[in-house]
């Protein structure tokens, strides 16, 4: 479980925000425009019990992404006809997602290989 309390350590926050941001982008990419609650639910579902977020911490991340221009938001009606704010991926966000997904894959590949190496391989 990732520690997702009130941010105290900046370093910790950065890592968490970075991961969370990538998940948000991917969620919006897969599901299309979605409100904050929907994004939080989706992340919970996908990660199972491995990741339970304090749902509120999602909002500063959404703000940051919006300020950077990766996502945009507008107010609309939710499923049960209530007013809700919907977030959607922008073109730039899609590009960012592709780039980050690629670099993420590269990183995982490197780490995987690194752990796969056995002691005798290094001789």
């Amino acid at each position, binding site marked *: 479980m990732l520690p997702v*309390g*009130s*941010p105290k350590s900046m370093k910790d926050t950065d890592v968490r925000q970075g991961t969370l941001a990538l998940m948000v982008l991917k969620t919006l990419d897969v599901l299309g425009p979605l*409100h*904050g*609650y929907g994004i*939080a*639910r989706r992340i919970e579902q996908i990660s199972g019990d491995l990741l339970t977020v*304090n*749902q*509120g*911490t999602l*909002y*500063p991340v959404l*703000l*940051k992404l*919006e*300020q*950077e*221009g990766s996502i945009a938001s507008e107010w609309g009606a*939710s499923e*049960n006809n*209530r*007013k*809700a*704010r919907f977030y959607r991926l922008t073109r730039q966000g899609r590009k960012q997602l592709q780039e980050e997904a690629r670099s993420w894959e590269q990183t995982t590949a490197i780490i995987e290989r690194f752990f796969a190496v056995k002691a005798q391989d290094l001789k």
Partner: protein
Amino acid sequence: MKTLKRLFRRLTSWMTSARDDALLQAEFEQHIAMQTAENLRAGLSPIEARRQALLKFGNVQAIKETYRDQRGLPFIETLVCDTRHALRRMRKAPGFTAAVILTLALGIGANTATFGVIDSILIRPLAYPQAEALVSVRHTAPGLPSAPEFGGSSSMYFTYREENRSFEQFGLWSASGATVTGVAEPEMPRALFVTYGVLDAVGVKPLLGRWFSQTDDTPKSPETVLLTYGYWQRRFGGDTSIVGRTLTINSTPHTVIGVMPDAFRFQRDPELILPQRFERSAQFLGGFGFQGIARLKSGVTIEQANTDVARMLGIWLKAWPPNPGIDRTVFENARLAPRLQPLKQDVIGDIGTALWVVMGTLGLVLLIACANVANLLLVRAESRQQEIATRAALGAGWRRIAREMLVESITLGVLGGALGIGLAYAALQLLVAKGPDTLPRLHEIGIDPLALAFAVGVSVLSGALFGVVPILKYARPRVATALRSVGRTFSDGRERHRTRHILAVVQVALALVLLIGSGLMIRTFQHLRSVQPGFTHPEEIQILHSMIPMAIAKEPERVMRMQHEILDTLAAIPGVTSVGFASRAPLESFLGSNLNPIDAEDKTFASGRVPPLRQIRRIAPGYFTTMGTRVVAGRDFSWTDLYDKHRVAIVSENLAREWWGDPGAALGKRIREVGPADPWREIVGVVENVYDDGVHVKPPEFAYWPALMDRYIWGGENGSAVVSGMFAIRSNRTGTEGLLAEAQQAIWSVNGRQPVFLITTLEALYDQSMARTSFTLVMLAIAGGMGLAIGIVGIYGVIAFVVSQRIREIGIRTALGAQPAGLLGMFVRHGLWLAGIGAAIGLVAAAGLTRLMSSLLFGVTALDPVTYAAVSALLIVAGVMASYLPARRAIAIDPIQALRAE
């Protein structure tokens, strides 16, 4: 890019923050409502469903806080908030605020104005394109006595233009007057004579018409002239059809070929620009009366150009014949060497030191003002001590409190600075309108972005400077301990007043430095005034220059008779005591010097050596009487000497002493100007020295020749008269419009086409020669006065505060039988102690700092003991007075009242 975008979003959202907060709240509510609905579906009770939803969401306030920090610009928000607070507090104390802002406005305004002047004159490049490549081409001659510096000769013009490797353009120029007749009254505007290359070098295109071409430079081609904007406006009302018209200049018709733009500036502020023409076949080595100007090729340094000129001097020395009557060895032995300097240095001259001294002085005044404001802020902080302590106790960090105090003082500084910029702007407008002509680049003075940046910087810096004092005292990390000591005021030790004491001592020390500076200038001025200048009562002497154009009289004798007639008419004006005529008035060296080597019959000079240069002036009888120059030995010239062409001369006392040891011994000796067959002239009189270059410079040695002579090296076949000369009128009506009108009328009654120009009084010339000293004196005196006043107020404030804090103690002392005299002494000693320490520090600082102004002093050294002693005494006495007044209040206190106080 991303960061920038975010910053921009933050900026915009910071402005819409209230609406955004409501929306965020709504979004959160919505989120929690959805989660609650989800929980309800999972079968939880409504209350439990909402509780779980809230738990899952997390701490709403903390999230909002993070969100807000990310959204807006918290630093700016607090800054705005602090500024708003500061402004509110200022409004509540209008008296305090006004005092502080006014003090700062004066200090910052004075500094900004002076910086504006320094910036315009010293820092900004000249108003020409790529002005840094412009140099003035000067020479020096280490082989001549006193190694004079001079411009260039006409032969150099040809050599330098043809042989140089480092100049893009080169030309010679000279400035003098030129008569313009036929348009309204005859007049003599300032004229600039330029060879081809000068205007090309400065690179300012004409507004109308064209520049001079090489044809205009060629002798015998049609005469042409360029007008400057000011003259064109004044004389022709900006008439654009002027180009192609003809003007009669120096009695010859000249075609106007163009008008220079308004922004065109040149040394000596010319009104007309005329081509300087040289006949190539008639040029000699000598005759260095021209100024050289060049534009260096890009990438060429002054050192490289100097080397290039040194090389060309070798070619030049071989290429041209020496002037008739002068041996070539004279030029060889002079060892001419180039001395190029940036044109800017030529233009601004030696005004720099005086300006920097004034700037430094006003900087000190600002420092004193800051110390004073810091003191006022301390008093305010004292009264807020409890508030600050309470806030600290409630958890406000000391940084936060310090920042708020700093914001308040910087706000004060900026407000004072804004007012100060207004004052500086007004002051500079006044300076440009009324300023002395001796100030170079006067019309370029103004406040440009650099000066504005300076003002803003100084404002913020002084705000921070005086703001940091109360912060160090009250908002340090241990701020909370203050809470303990408030309550009843105790009579406490020196510790408590230490900051205040330091400030008072600093003020006294700085004031002493300023006062010593102004004291030294006063002593300099006294010394200058006490020099016997070689003339008396300059305020009575009216000076008019006039010229007899060739078209009216050519014959030297006729010219002289005409001037004689004018003298007689002038003498007949009521109220005129005496009149005189000479080639030039004393203290007019700005018209250019008239130095030439003088030879004495009984002295021999080694061959190839030039005798020393002497000042030459031509005079008519009565000149010395009018000026009040004493005849030391012998007699003045007589009209018979002039009309009968007696070969006579008069010399100055210093020349007579140098050559013959005694004024009397000079009589009967014969002298002449070095040149082809100038006749020997017998010395018939010796007159006292005249300080012709200003009283701060050693008086030059003079040779006076008669205004009319039969033979003269610079004259023609029929002899020589002074065509353009100066009439001096001694009268008790000098300086009045009436006398001037009558004098002009007198001249025009003899000859209606004779221009009258350079109208002034000898007193004006005398004052002008001391302009730099009096300017510095006035500025330093103002600064010193301000410094003294603020310093005294500083001591007074400290003692008054100490007295008010120790009322209880005084009451107890009085009740126990302390004598009033003893109490009085206690406080006065306290004040004296502050003044004494301040004075001691100030003396040391002054000894170091005044050395910087030694080039401005005359007759006193920078360590003049009289000034130092007098100023210290003045300051100590002032310190005693400043502490005596509040101390008297202390002994008037009724002990019962005092103990009941609070």
